[in-house]
């Protein structure tokens, strides 16, 4: 996978990265620049429909994703996706339309174009771990994150279900750990790496969300983590934005900064903290980073 040829990708940031997850977008662009990986945003991409679309209208979900895949064809390189939800939907679309001819015909009619399934859709983790390669990533490190104990949180959509995203083992993935360990951090073994945070109900049933998210924060804390790392803006929203609220409701004290993977890797490769959007995080990460000597 690793080659000397310059890496370049079409980039699908997704809606959240243009809004609540601005720091994920910023740190992704900055990190890729630093690693000399080309990133060109797909022009005029639109919403993949995420969970609500497939929840009630799969045909719409497949059509929106198929349209986005078609738009991405215009940009050179594999499609780099930052958001786990967008990643999951795009992969699902490729998988479903590849297997089911009827659905494929319906989608082609809906978007009035042949569907394009050949292009590779890759999550940022795959690009860092496999295309760039862990060795080259390790070689780019300026400030190893020594002594930082990270709880890698995959959530539901990065790996599941079997045979669809094919990012890593569905039950025991290691790709996040591999990436963050290669830039010098430690990872903790913990029990809730793949449990659901309930992102689907952020808007409609926040009461449900805080219960699920609390269990995750609790498990990370119990495992001795300093912070949590995620690759999904929806997980981030629940773990970071709602953390204070959860602490209040459950009488806990977590104080666990929730980083995007690009923020932590960016820090390790020597990016200035201002270019990582750290100030946008609700749980202030600066005390932790200062105490570990990274700032």
């Amino acid at each position, binding site marked *: 996978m690793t080659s000397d040829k310059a890496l370049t990708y079409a980039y699908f940031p997704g809606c959240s990265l243009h809004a609540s997850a601005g720091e994920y977008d910023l740190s992704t662009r900055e990190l890729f620049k630093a690693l000399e990986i080309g990133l060109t945003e797909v022009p*005029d991409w*639109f919403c993949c429909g995420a969970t*609500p679309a497939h929840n009630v209208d799969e045909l719409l979900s497949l059509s929106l994703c198929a349209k986005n895949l078609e738009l991405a064809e215009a940009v050179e390189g594999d499609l780099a996706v930052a958001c786990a939800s967008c990643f999951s939907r795009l992969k699902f679309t490729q998988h479903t339309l590849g297997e089911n001819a009827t659905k494929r015909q319906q989608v082609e009619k809906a978007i*009035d174009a042949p569907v394009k399934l050949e292009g590779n859709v890759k999550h940022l983790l795959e690009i860092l771990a496999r295309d760039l390669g862990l060795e080259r990533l390790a070689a780019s490190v300026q400030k190893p994150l020594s002594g930082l104990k990270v709880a890698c949180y995959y959530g539901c959509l990065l790996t*599941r279900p079997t045979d669809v995203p094919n990012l890593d083992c569905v039950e025991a993935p290691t790709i996040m750990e591999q990436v963050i360990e290669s830039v010098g951090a430690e990872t903790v073994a913990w029990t809730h790496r793949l449990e659901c945070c309930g992102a689907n109900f952020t808007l*409609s*049933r926040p009461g449900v969300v805080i219960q699920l998210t609390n269990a995750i924060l609790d498990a990370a804390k119990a495992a001795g983590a300093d912070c949590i790392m995620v690759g999904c803006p929806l997980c981030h929203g629940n773990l970071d934005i709602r953390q204070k609220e959860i602490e209040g409701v459950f009488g806990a004290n977590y104080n666990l900064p929730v980083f995007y993977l690009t923020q932590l890797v960016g820090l390790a490769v020597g990016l200035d903290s201002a270019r990582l959007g750290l100030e*946008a995080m609700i749980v202030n990460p600066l005390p932790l980073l200062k105490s570990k000597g990274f700032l």
Partner: protein
Amino acid sequence: MDGPVKKKKMVISQETMDVDFVRKVEMLSDTSVRRCFQCGKCSAGCPMATFMEHPPNRVVRLLQLGQWQRILAGRSIWYCASCETCSTRCPNKVHLASIMDALRKLSWDAEGASKESYVQLANKLFLQNIRSYGRQYEMRLAAVFNVKSGQFLKDLMLGPKLFAKGKLKMFHSKNKNMAEIEKIFGRIEEMRKNGEAL
């Protein structure tokens, strides 16, 4: 939840088992409900099972018996988080998460059959947002949801903070592909009207 329907004796006959509905579910979800042998592994791992009146395995069981009214009358399908844990661990390759998608779709078609309103409202607004703007604008989504659901003050404490952190944007530009999106929505509606798609 719904006393009368839930507690009512199930009278099973070829007439009361709605095979057509089950076939629609199977077609939409690309999976067979007959494959399930009721081991309950889906319910064991479901993060949302404690919020459902019918645990996931029972939803499949009711489908096997063609008793969809009992499913749609409850809230279970609207409490599915789409986390795919059930599909991943099912020993029989029953894609329960996809079955849930299909059931929600058919519930929408059945208009108002289901109780859960907040989740449905959020979904509706989300899709409307795509149709009108091409992309999701969280601020707008949240504001409209709160107004429509009558929870004006929900998450009040979060708002200003997120705003200060740049996480909620007031202004947004329209996507240049708007015409194309409208066409996609239109074509799908057309196909359904002509009976070319479910």
